[in-house]
């Protein structure tokens, strides 16, 4: 220990005298900010968001109202005389090797792809929300049990699981069974995300307040925890929708989707591959539509995720 006197080693700036400033004036009439309005303000300014939304809108319109896009009726649009024909009036993309109108098949196929994707996502997200919320909120043995069940479903790649389900259900393949086969196995990753989010929200003061005010545990979970965990669910649902559309196409390609009588992009691509060398366009056009649709959903999901996450906004 030295007992030398301390020498001033730092320069200390003189205190600047300033009058009192109003720092805590709050505009009472301002709309309260929340993640949704902040997120919307961020999304609104991004052109990619509008482009993706436009693509999704067009595909939705095709699914709901196909006659708006093509006059060719479904299924009986194949004339062998047109085999491999080029674009003709009313048939802008030409014909497949079997003489089917490529554009008409794309338009009518949108319904199958979107229906399977939507139903599978609803099934997967609902299951994932229930399992994840219960596991995260109640904890304890219920968490262990539900998380282990989730691990089991996670361990089976869901397309392979759907292959098995569709093989067993070979007698009743329809949009619902196909969606069930995809969504019934895709929920595990959603459940993990929801569980993590619920674990985080559970610690918040308003949850404790709700309990202290005498609300039941389940009531608190439903009224306060779940609504606050919805943002990541929305993001992962949009991304799962993209994955489910890919899954439908892949299963149709593998021959365990909807039969070749149903028009879907996966069926179109898988039928076109037999004549890839002579009629490549029959494969390339549906591939582009499929990829662009999936891309639009992925972009939407990622943009929403970034918009709802203040840290991601700050990182940009």
């Amino acid at each position, binding site marked *: 220990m030295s007992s030398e006197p301390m020498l001033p080693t730092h320069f200390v700036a003189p205190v600047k005298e300033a009058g009192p400033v109003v720092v805590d004036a709050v505009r009472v009439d301002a709309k309260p900010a929340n993640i949704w309005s902040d997120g919307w303000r961020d999304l609104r300014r991004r052109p990619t968001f509008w482009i993706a939304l436009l693509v999704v809108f067009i595909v939705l319109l095709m699914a709901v109202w196909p006659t708006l896009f093509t006059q060719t009726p479904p299924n009986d649009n194949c004339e062998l005389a047109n085999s491999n024909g080029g674009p003709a009036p009313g048939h802008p993309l030409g014909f497949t090797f079997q003489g089917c109108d490529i554009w008409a098949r794309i338009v009518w196929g949108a319904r199958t792809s979107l229906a399977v994707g939507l139903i599978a996502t609803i099934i997967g997200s609902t299951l994932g929300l229930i399992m994840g919320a219960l596991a995260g909120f109640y904890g304890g043995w219920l968490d262990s049990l539900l998380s282990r069940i989730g691990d089991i479903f996670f*361990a089976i790649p869901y397309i392979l699981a759907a292959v*098995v*389900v569709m093989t067993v259900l070979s007698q009743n393949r329809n949009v619902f069974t196909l969606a069930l086969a995809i969504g019934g196995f895709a929920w595990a990753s959603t459940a993990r995300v929801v569980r993590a989010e619920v674990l985080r929200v559970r610690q918040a003061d308003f949850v404790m307040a709700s309990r202290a005010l005498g609300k039941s545990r389940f009531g608190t979970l439903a009224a306060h925890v779940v609504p606050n965990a919805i943002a990541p669910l929305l993001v992962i649902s949009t991304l799962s929708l993209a994955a489910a559309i890919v899954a439908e*196409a892949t299963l149709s390609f593998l021959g365990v989707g909807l039969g070749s009588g149903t028009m879907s992009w996966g069926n179109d691509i898988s039928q076109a591959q037999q004549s890839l060398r002579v009629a490549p366009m029959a494969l390339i056009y549906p*591939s582009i539509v499929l990829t662009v649709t999936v891309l639009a959903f992925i972009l939407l999901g990622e943009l929403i995720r970034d918009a709802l996450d203040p840290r991601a906004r700050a990182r940009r």
Partner: protein
Amino acid sequence: MFAYILRRFVQVIPVFFGSTLLIYFMVFAMPGDPIAALFGDKQPSPQLIAQLEEQYHLNEPFLVQYFYYMAGIFQGNMGVTFSGQSVNDVLARTLPITARLAIMAIAIEFTLAVIVGTISALRKGKIFDNTALVISLIFVAMPIFVFAFLAQYFLAIQLGWFKPTVGGQNDWGDLWLPALVLGISLFATSMRLMRGSVLDTLNQDWVRTAYSKGLSRRRVIPVHVLRNSLIPVITNTATNFGVLLVGATVTEFIFNIPGVGNTLFQATLRHEGPTIVSFVTVFVIIYVLVNLVVDLFYGVLDPRIRYVK
């Protein structure tokens, strides 16, 4: 480390039995006759029915059937295919080919992801980064069978750089095109993870410390940044292994490679239920084991993980 290995092994047991039980349940405990369901519109011969009933112990209660099946697997007997071949024989012939394809694909994926992801992160917001992000988004969105067909059509049929199909010759050199297709289709997610991970690591204290003690960029980036950024990419390779297996099934069919995936695909085309079940089970077992191995590796790479309960 030993406690960590032991804990992981204990955790994998319920997943292993649960997932195999689930597949088995879907096929053999559904209402109706499982044999009829497995064959669909085909009419199996009475001998085949008798053989399958004996093989799967269909006269016993469900759990006993499953017990016999698992006992068989632990004795190294994976069952019999539709045409009466032992699954073990088929696996011995096809698994090495699929393994070769998978190793090449993962090597391509990993190399590309690490190189492109790191450069992207270091040049965040520049042309290279933006181009890489757009390309990776397209590959995230494009289903692998679409990419495989496009590559086959343009690179093999139009340009003639590769043989369009592989067939019986499937040495390392013959698998270039399918491995590229599989690797590139997987690369997108890994590259984006790598980019994010490098960006995170660049902000860490130890990187600042490394720079401030005078180390050059040439030393800081590979030693202090890359090693610490690799973990998410490695984990992703493991969780994505299921995608790889499905992708291998599709590429093997499109490029006509006689691997496990192609066998599974041919079985689905011919509606050969029992073969499908056996091979999906094989895939799930491989998937669970790969994840176990990667988790163990992960414990080696990051000592902190070993101590987390």
